[in-house]
């Protein structure tokens, strides 16, 4: 069954994502930036749902929006300095950065314009109803080793974060 009003939702969600992204890099107050980033993340979760990837969408919501962003907000509140907001927000090389970014964007546009033919327009009809089960099968069969490595990475990250953030007792 074809989802209803696909273009409408696509444009809405993409607009939200891009606007959120713009706000992230322009807001003076880091908390506002973080909230904009949450908007982007949620819009992306919606896009994943439209791409028949419900599991990734769920992980996006629970891990990104509900986990990582809370961490960000926590840290922002810990280091939130009034003084910081009054300072110059962009560094001295902002012009160079902007030029580099524009060049990168142009590159993308060129690649997409040239390579449009490369992307086949056939859509693999992935059965949404079985998405989670299929992801699980792939994850625990073909990508078992990577999965274990990822868990190790997380462990290292936990220890690293604790070591970094722990108060030194002199």
């Amino acid at each position, binding site marked *: 069954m074809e989802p209803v009003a*696909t*273009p409408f939702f*696509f444009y809405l969600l993409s607009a939200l994502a*891009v606007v959120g*992204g713009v706000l*992230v*890099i322009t807001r003076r107050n*880091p908390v506002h*930036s*973080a909230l904009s*980033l949450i908007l*982007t993340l949620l819009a*992306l979760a919606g*896009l994943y749902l*439209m*791409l028949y*990837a419900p*599991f*990734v969408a769920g992980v996006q919501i629970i*891990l*990104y929006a509900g*986990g990582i962003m809370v961490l*960000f907000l926590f*840290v922002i509140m810990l*280091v939130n*300095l009034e003084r*910081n907001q009054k*300072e*110059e*927000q*962009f*560094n*001295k*090389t902002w012009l160079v950065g902007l030029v580099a*970014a524009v060049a990168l964007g142009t590159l*993308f*546009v060129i690649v*997409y314009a040239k390579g449009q033919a490369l*992307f*086949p*327009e056939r*859509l*693999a009809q*992935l059965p949404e109803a079985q998405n989670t089960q*299929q*992801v699980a099968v*792939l994850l625990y069969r*073909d*990508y078992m080793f*990577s999965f274990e490595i*990822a868990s190790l*990475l*997380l462990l*290292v*990250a936990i220890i*690293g*974060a604790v*070591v*970094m*953030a722990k108060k030194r007792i002199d």
Partner: protein
Amino acid sequence: MVPITTLHYLVVAACLFVLGVVGVLTRRNVVIILMSIELILNAVNLNLVAFSRLYGLHGQIFAIFVITDAAAEAAVGLGILIAFFRNKETVNVDEVDLLKW
């Protein structure tokens, strides 16, 4: 209306990617730089998931790994940030000009 194709998603991803790059290159606040990196990772994720519709589920698996990675990166990055802030009372990157203090 034009039907939504994979290319549409790729364009959105490209926009987010460029925004992330601009953020990393121009902002001074470390927290916002870290958030811009998250933007870049998300752009990549969108690409992966969009392609997974064409080439099978592997893209989604990669997206999940990227999210895992992002969690680890955020944890360590913010840990460093706190340690740094505790010593220097600032969160601006261009003031990180000493290797030791």
